């Protein structure tokens, strides 16, 4: 008797209060959004094979990159690891029977779906062409797209992350098993906790900003419109006050996953545990102080620009500490190159490149040159896709046996990891060079000398598509034909590996007692 065969009807899934089933609801929905956003990206890359804007009209192109951005950021990246693996694993890692608020947990999924429906409506009812940032006054006064429906969708989905954040924080504070002190928590839990803090502290500011944008668009109430006395730069400040920390909502959970995977496949205690925990909190904190680096060319004060530039450099310190600690964990480890490890190692490499180029664009003078070029596009895709999505795949493969009770086909997973790594670099490395040479973002036509690198990039996108479709196939295949997994197939440490795979409905028959630190790989479990 486990959580999967505890009930079979549709109702037992749609009205479930089990955190493990809620994780599945999220998993299925965000996979749908991932491939929708991916389809939009495919059209963008197809258009960019030739310099002339021939495949899509400029309007259609604007709608495609906006759809790609909105869906990927708000409906895939932000919920991704917290809502799926976080939901599934947090209570298991804490030795709890469920989240503190199971009903709220289910409600957050319904809120997510409602927001998603609004956004899909916007796509069907004429599309949206503002980009994912909804900059005013274009979004409020000039855009002909369904801005209101899309903004409402994003507004609603914000409450889904607020509810998830509240639930995670309360669960981590109040539901830890006896003996599970803060410094015995797995780093995955620390990462979820810091992410939840950002969700709770930043998302409401986005909500009110979108409300103000919505009333301006719907009723002609001037808040950000210069014609009505408002200031569009204020919108940018409020927007990035949320959306820069949101980058860390997407990234911190990835760091948590990678810490678990690296420790397991190096079969070693994580190096510098406390530094890792505090650097997660430091990144969450600094994340709130750097939003102005998105606005170096907006006309904000030069002194603000200098301060934001210096503060942005600071973020690289805890990030670099994490990379050094992962490498130190690998040192003299018994390393195994299973698929989760391959994905985790590509995370480290790609995140390193993304992070270092982040220092370039955080440099005030250099950013004037780089701003709104493909260099920035490449930079954040190295963080978001190379970093975050690689970690998502690492975690998905790592915990797949626990979640489903089945093993995935290892050889195919390794093939997929290598295809994704190669395809990713082929797609986005040329974009660094394109941006450096001055190719601007968001245009469907470009100068002819940029064509060769754009063809490389589009070819890489094709590989990337194969790399992401493969897991979809073999993971579904493994649900039925995969070999049965034992409770702890990786010889990993952590409370989630002490229960059967898939876990029983109530997680733990008796409340576990914890008397050792996390990652005790030097002692047999």
């Amino acid at each position, binding site marked *: 008797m486990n959580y999967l065969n505890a009930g079979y009807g549709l109702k037992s899934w749609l009205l479930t*209060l089990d955190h493990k089933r809620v994780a599945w609801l999220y998993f299925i929905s965000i996979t749908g959004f991932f491939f929708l956003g991916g389809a939009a990206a495919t059209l963008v890359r197809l258009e960019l094979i030739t310099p002339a804007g021939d495949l899509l009209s400029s309007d259609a192109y604007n709608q495609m990159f906006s759809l790609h951005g909105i869906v990927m950021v708000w409906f895939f990246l932000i919920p991704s690891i917290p809502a799926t693996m976080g939901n599934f694993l947090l*209570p298991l890692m804490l030795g*709890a*029977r*469920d*989240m*503190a*608020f*199971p009903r*709220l947990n289910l409600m957050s999924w319904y809120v997510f779906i409602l927001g998603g429906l609004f956004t899909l409506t916007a796509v069907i009812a004429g599309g949206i062409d503002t980009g994912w940032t909804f900059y005013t006054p274009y979004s409020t006064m000039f855009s002909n797209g369904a801005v209101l429906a899309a903004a409402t969708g994003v507004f609603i989905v914000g409450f889904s992350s*607020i509810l998830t*954040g*509240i*639930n995670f*924080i*309360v*669960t981590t*504070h*109040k*539901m830890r098993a006896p003996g599970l002190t803060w410094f015995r928590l797995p780093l995955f839990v620390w990462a979820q906790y810091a992410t939840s803090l950002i969700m*709770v*502290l*930043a*998302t*409401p*500011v986005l*909500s*009110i*900003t979108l*409300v*103000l944008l919505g*009333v301006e668009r719907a*009723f*002609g*109430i*001037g*808040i950000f419109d210069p014609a*009505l*006395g*408002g*200031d569009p730069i*204020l919108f940018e400040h*409020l927007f990035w006050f949320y959306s820069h920390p949101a980058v860390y909502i997407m990234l911190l959970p990835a760091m948590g996953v990678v810490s678990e995977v690296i420790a397991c496949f190096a079969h070693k205690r994580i190096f510098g545990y406390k530094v890792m925990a505090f650097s997660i909190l430091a990144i969450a904190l600094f994340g709130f102080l750097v939003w102005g680096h998105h606005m170096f060319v907006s006309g904000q004060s030069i002194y603000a620009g200098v301060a934001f530039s210096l503060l942005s450099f600071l973020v690289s310190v805890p990030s670099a500490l994490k990379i050094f600690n992962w490498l130190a964990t690998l040192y003299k480890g018994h390393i195994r190159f299973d698929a989760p490890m391959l994905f985790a190692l590509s995370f480290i490499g790609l995140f390193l490149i993304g992070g270092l180029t982040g220092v370039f664009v955080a440099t005030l003078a250099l950013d004037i040159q780089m701003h709104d070029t493909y260099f920035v596009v490449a930079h954040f895709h190295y963080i978001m896709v190379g970093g975050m999505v690689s970690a998502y795949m690492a975690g998905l493969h790592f915990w797949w046996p626990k979640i489903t009770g089945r093993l995935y086909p290892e050889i195919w997973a390794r093939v997929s990891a290598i295809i994704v790594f190669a395809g990713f670099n082929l797609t986005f490395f040329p974009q660094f060079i394109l941006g450096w040479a001055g190719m601007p973002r968001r245009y469907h036509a470009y100068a002819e000398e940029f064509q060769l690198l754009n063809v490389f990039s589009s070819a890489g996108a094709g590989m990337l598509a194969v790399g992401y479709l493969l897991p979809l196939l073999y993971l579904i295949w493994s649900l039925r034909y995969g070999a049965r997994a034992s409770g702890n197939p990786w010889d990993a440490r952590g409370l989630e590996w002490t229960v059967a795979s898939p876990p029983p409905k*109530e997680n733990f028959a008796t*409340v576990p007692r914890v008397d050792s630190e996390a990652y005790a790989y030097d002692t047999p479990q």
Partner: protein
Amino acid sequence: MTRPNNQTTVIVAHQFETLEQQFDADLLGMWLFLVTEALLFSGAFLALAVYYHQYYDTFSAAARELHWLLAGINSVILLTSGLAVALAEQAAEEHRRRLTLCWLSATIALGVAFLCLKSYEYYMEYRAGLIPFLDQPFAFSGPDPHNAMLFYNFYFAITGLHALHMIIGLMVLLVMLVLTYRWRESARVARQVRIAGLYWAFVDIVWVLVYCSLYLLGR
């Protein structure tokens, strides 16, 4: 999904070990929710502060058109309702059902009175032609009516958002009234009233900020 606990009458939700753990979790959840609410309002207050700084003279002239006395009376009403809900929490803590019912009803009555008075205030502003949207004639007589519109936009957006929170708070209090009327487990009712009271207190405090920044700042 509930299982009996050794304290015969009290039922703990399945994910918790003890009733105390459950109540602590509920209380922390409400505090966190209030943090998000505070940040929601903070965005609007920040934007107001920026424009107040930019158009100080216009904004203070526009603020002087508001009915500060009426809103002041309303503040007294709302703060009194805050006292009433605190007394209701106290009464529930002491397991006094009738007294809890009385204080909860008083809170709701005062809250409704606040909303009625606020609606009357909106009506007076409508009569004075101070509504800068919905194609109403805008009859602000002071200097720079263009930017004064911006002030009234904030006035209606912020007080409207606050009124929405009042309505939600009143619905929560009505649920508390029903729960107190039923009086299933006194310890549980006491905690529920306390958590609801926390939300109501937050709505009160936000109003104090609204009153100071919109009505009094320009005087």
